[in-house]
């Protein structure tokens, strides 16, 4: 093949040879090559197969906007699909594979899709895979899913590390081309802390596409030397600014280790940087765009500027016989550099008139030129073999008779330049169409602190871009509060003044030459969307750009239509007979280029996904062999298995031990809120449904609080420590929500109440000691506290010491047994646990976990989180008698809404299996016994446990009628396991319903 390495030239390091493989074959390149440039240098021009039609595709660009040459890199857990070959820096041992082809790239079975093109048009799925039922689509879906997509992701865990960094700068400069470098110089000289980022491996941007040794290289070197010499400047290469967010926040991804065989040592593979900038300069440049003509997707069709980059930057010549098709002056440096590198070049200029000087320059370089002509189609399938050109009228957009065939192996296209407006547009300001440039430019002068400069605002001259960048850098620095004198930008006369002399004439598409066959004209190369798809969308009424995009999928691929969108809009505008500016663009959203999810997750993955909260006794539980479970962010002891026990055996033994002797359980995770102030009782009265004015010092009370909308928010016990001092406990799950709720009420709703609330959840360790022996055990363990029934009755509060540790004790019971909660300052938690354990050992005290804790309270009929799930009211839970009639409380009014007082609502009841042995599952839907089993039924089972005391399963749940339906049988249906268990409705209090054990 005729693509080859040039003997001299390029910015690669010819002294460092690199070996890599592509599709299993070995090739050599040089340090500084991209995978694309190295493959071109090796004569490889077929790199992939297109998404839908599996057409052969090659390299189109030399940058991140690459639509076709997507490869999969690496293997195993480090495998990365859909990587543009144009952005891959080769290194020894690099393994790259082409995608979306089977069995091979050159012989792809799915290429048959190409024959079905007329049927596979836009909206194909939507129109075709219909059937009388949903099942029709579901039958097709697996085939379509397998055929869809380009590369395949790995299913193995990612072995690499990722970092998240928070960075701050006075001025962020995006893009290190001439405009960006100048902006960074200006900002830095003005005194601003400056961060300059570029997605490339080295700074320089478009300057790197000039021949090595060009005069502009001197300017580049000097600029970098000055910037690198300042410690207020940070240059980040291989870094993409992918998103611009509110208030000057930018998202960046730095590819730290992707260009190496593997990250070295502790190096992260990628770094996610959240940068807060006082102001920014966006110098993101512009991307050349192609012109759609027949079969414009063949390997060998590429952007003119890309071909120039391959020659000048990488020393690789894409072909021997090159046609350059253009409608603007910007393509000529490419044509000339290609000719000077030894290719036979034919320029096909669409415009009718161009300066004679341009024509003679072409001739001097040995290039032919056809003026007023267009390329209408290419010849060749796996690679371009020729171009068909015909006379072309830019005003009518029509071709005239007299086509001719030019044998060639590369067709370079330049349809104009599209400024990279993404970061500006992400801020919600739509870009504006500039007729003279035939381009969309950023919508305002300075958007959200962003100052634009250079090609990204339509200034295509290198020298002009530098000048603009310098000015923008000063403005940005000033906006960030820095205005030291910055001098002048020196030596910019060595930068070419290569703006357009003759205006561009837009050519949005080229029809077939008269007498030739129509061929597909691709607009979005990656998603295989062609001109006919856009016309189809228009015919079917999908004329708005947002509909056009979604109906055809144009612009929805990994390249987000960077080279396709403007052409598509222009075509739609012509179809609708509207100016392009009126048709507008779709909404721009981050990320600018794909971002790995691993980079966004940073270190917060795996066991670091959420913070872990441990109780003060966590280490003890683990030492005692507890199996741990998650309760929100908390780790709690689930059960303490003895030899050979599984969870069921363990929790049943623990429950039996508590009811027959005693048990101790870590309840430190409960929310604890200190409430103090002269209005504390009034506050509690308003927040809880029941009354607090008469609660004596040294007593505790069970309380329920409602949300504003009348549903139950949480329950807990609140103790009165002294006249104006209360100690509130909440459930573990609702602790944070209740705290925020109380703060809201005190700060916003009732700021006149003199009350302070303080979260003390982490300040107290707490153990519940429950069972008939609990009093005896605590009497042995504690001193300074009379534990007799008279001195410390049920719901009493007392203070004492436990092995020298100050403790507060409340006689409360969750299990229904005689029980106490013992609280000590968190630092003493482990010591308290050990002291209680020692005191309890002679009495048979065991440790129990959350499984037994739950089982005991279900036996008792105590509601908890499964019942207080945000959908239940006080009366649903059978607690309506708690509501005070003497004082108002939050939620009272809306709890009285019709739907919430409807007698048919499911209400709390107990359930036992009719056959006395079946297992009842939480979440079962309750349905009429024997049927019909449909819809939401009569209610659901909320909590279950095996009851050792009764010898069978018992459950709590909500059922229509509640306790009024006592004795009736309903079916507990668990469709997930296909179980139907008849259950009888009973009282929810299975054990000690009279509460005798509590009060003993």
């Amino acid at each position, binding site marked *: 093949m005729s693509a080859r390495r040039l003997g001299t030239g390029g910015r690669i390091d010819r002294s460092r040879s690199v070996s890599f493989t592509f599709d299993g074959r070995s090739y050599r390149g040089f340090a500084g090559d991209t995978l694309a440039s190295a493959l071109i240098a090796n004569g490889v021009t077929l790199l992939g197969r297109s998404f839908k039609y599996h057409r052969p595709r090659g390299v189109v660009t030399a940058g991140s906007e690459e639509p076709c040459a997507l490869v999969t890199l690496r293997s195993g857990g480090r495998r990365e699909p859909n990587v543009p070959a144009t952005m891959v820096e080769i290194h020894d041992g690099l393994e790259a594979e082409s995608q979306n082809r089977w069995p091979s790239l050159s012989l792809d079975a799915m290429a048959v899709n190409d024959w079905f093109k007329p049927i596979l048009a836009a909206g194909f799925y939507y129109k075709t895979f219909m059937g009388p039922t949903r099942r029709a689509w579901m039958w097709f879906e697996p085939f379509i899913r397998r055929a869809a997509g380009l590369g395949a992701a790995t299913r193995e865990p990612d072995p690499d590390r990722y970092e998240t960094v928070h960075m701050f700068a006075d001025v962020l400069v995006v893009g290190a081309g001439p405009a960006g470098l100048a902006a960074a110089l200006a900002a830095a000289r003005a005194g601003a802390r400056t961060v300059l980022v570029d997605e490339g491996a080295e700074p320089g941007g478009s300057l790197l596409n000039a021949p090595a040794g060009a005069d502009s290289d001197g300017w580049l070197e000097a600029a970098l030397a000055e910037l690198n010499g300042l410690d207020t400047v940070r240059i980040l290469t291989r870094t993409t600014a992918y998103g611009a*967010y*509110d*208030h000057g*926040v930018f998202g960046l991804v730095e590819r730290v280790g992707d260009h190496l065989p593997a990250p070295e040592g502790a190096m992260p593979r990628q770094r996610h940087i959240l940068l*807060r900038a006082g102001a920014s300069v966006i110098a993101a440049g512009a991307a050349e765009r192609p012109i759609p003509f027949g079969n414009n997707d063949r390997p060998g069709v590429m952007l003119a500027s890309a071909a120039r980059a391959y020659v000048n930057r990488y020393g690789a010549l894409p072909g021997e016989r090159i046609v350059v098709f253009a409608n603007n002056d910007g393509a000529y440096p490419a044509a000339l550099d290609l000719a000077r590198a030894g290719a036979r070049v034919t320029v096909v200029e669409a415009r009718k008139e161009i300066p004679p000087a341009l024509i003679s320059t072409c001739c001097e370089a040995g290039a032919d030129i056809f003026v007023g002509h267009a390329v209408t189609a290419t010849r060749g399938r796996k690679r371009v073999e020729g171009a068909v050109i015909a006379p072309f009228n830019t005003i009518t957009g029509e071709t005239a008779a007299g086509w001719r065939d030019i044998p060639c192996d590369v067709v370079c296209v330049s349809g104009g330049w599209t400024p990279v407006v993404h970061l500006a547009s992400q801020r*919600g300001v739509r870009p504006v169409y500039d007729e003279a440039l035939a381009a969309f430019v950023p919508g305002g002068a300075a958007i*959200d602190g962003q100052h634009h400069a250079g090609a990204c605002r339509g200034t295509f001259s290198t020298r002009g871009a530098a000048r603009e960048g310098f000015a923008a850098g000063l403005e940005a620095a000033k906006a960030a509060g820095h205005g030291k004198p910055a001098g002048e930008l020196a030596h910019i006369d060595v930068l070419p003044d290569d703006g357009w002399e003759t205006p561009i004439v837009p050519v949005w598409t080229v029809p077939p030459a008269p007498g030739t066959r129509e061929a597909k004209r691709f607009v979005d190369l990656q998603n295989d969307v062609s001109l006919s798809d856009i016309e189809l969308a228009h015919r079917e009424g999908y004329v708005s750009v947002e509909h056009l995009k979604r109906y055809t999928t144009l612009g929805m691929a990994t390249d987000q239509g960077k080279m396709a969108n403007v052409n598509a809009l222009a075509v739609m505008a012509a179809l609708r007979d509207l100016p392009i500016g009126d048709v507008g663009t779709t909404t721009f959203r981050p990320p600018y280029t794909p971002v790995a999810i691993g980079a966004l997750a940073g270190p917060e993955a795996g066991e670091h996904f959420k913070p872990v909260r441990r109780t003060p006794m966590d280490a003890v539980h683990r030492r005692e062999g507890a199996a741990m479970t998650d309760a929100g962010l908390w780790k709690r002891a689930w059960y303490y298995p003895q030899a050979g026990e599984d969870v069921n055996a363990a929790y049943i033994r623990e429950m039996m031990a508590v009811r027959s002797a005693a048990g101790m359980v870590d309840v430190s995770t409960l929310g604890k809120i200190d409430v103090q102030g002269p209005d504390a009782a009034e506050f509690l009265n*308003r927040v809880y449904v029941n009354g607090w004015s008469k609660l004596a010092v040294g007593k505790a009370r069970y309380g329920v609080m409602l949300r*504003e*909308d009348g549903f139950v928010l949480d329950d807990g016990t609140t103790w009165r420590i002294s006249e104006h001092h209360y100690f509130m406990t909440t459930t573990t799950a609702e602790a*944070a929500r209740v705290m*925020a709720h109380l*703060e*809201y009420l005190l*700060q*916003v*709703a*009732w*700021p*006149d109440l003199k009350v302070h609330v303080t979260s003390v959840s982490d300040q107290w360790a707490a153990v519940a000691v429950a069972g008939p022996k609990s009093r005896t055990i605590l009497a042995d363990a504690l001193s300074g506290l009379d534990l007799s029934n008279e001195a410390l009755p049920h719901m009493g509060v007392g203070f004492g010491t436990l092995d020298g540790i100050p403790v507060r004790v409340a006689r409360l019971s969750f299990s229904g047994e005689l029980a106490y909660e013992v609280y000590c300052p968190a630092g003493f938690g482990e010591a308290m646990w050990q002291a209680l354990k020692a005191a309890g050992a002679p009495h048979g005290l065991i440790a129990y976990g959350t499984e037994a804790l739950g089982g005991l309270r279900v036996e008792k009929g105590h509601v908890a989180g499964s019942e207080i799930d945000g959908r239940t009211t006080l009366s649903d839970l059978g607690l309506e008698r708690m509501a005070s009639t003497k004082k*108002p*409380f*939050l939620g009272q*009014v*809306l709890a*009285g*809404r019709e739907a919430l007082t409807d007698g048919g609502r499911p209400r709390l009841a107990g359930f036992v299996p009719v056959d006395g042995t079946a297992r009842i599952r939480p979440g079962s839907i309750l349905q009429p016994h024997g049927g019909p089993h449909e819809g939401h039924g009569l209610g659901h089972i909320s909590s279950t446990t095996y009851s050792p005391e009764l010898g069978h399963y018992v459950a709590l749940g909500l059922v229509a009628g509640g306790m009024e339906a006592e004795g009736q049988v309903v079916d507990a249906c668990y469709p997930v396991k296909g179980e139907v268990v008849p259950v009888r409705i009973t009282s929810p209090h299975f054990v000690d319903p009279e509460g005798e054990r509590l009060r003993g």
Partner: protein
Amino acid sequence: MRIDCPCCGPRDHDEFAYGGDASRTMPDIADTGMERWFDHVFLRDNPRGPHKEFWHHAHGCRQWLVVERDTVTHEIARVALARGEVSR
């Protein structure tokens, strides 16, 4: 997004919890009017433009703030302690 907390200075939005529309005033606790409570809890305007809303500095000073933010541009015009804003 950044919010300039009166106590703590400019902080990142992920230190705060959104608290909804701040133009509503809770009825008096003794007010038994169903309509007034219903309006307070459920009815909201959805303005395109300046909006007064609550943010709770949950990972900072724990103060409830009233923030005037433009729902289109996200520009924040004003931040104040809620305590100082509510008159009773």
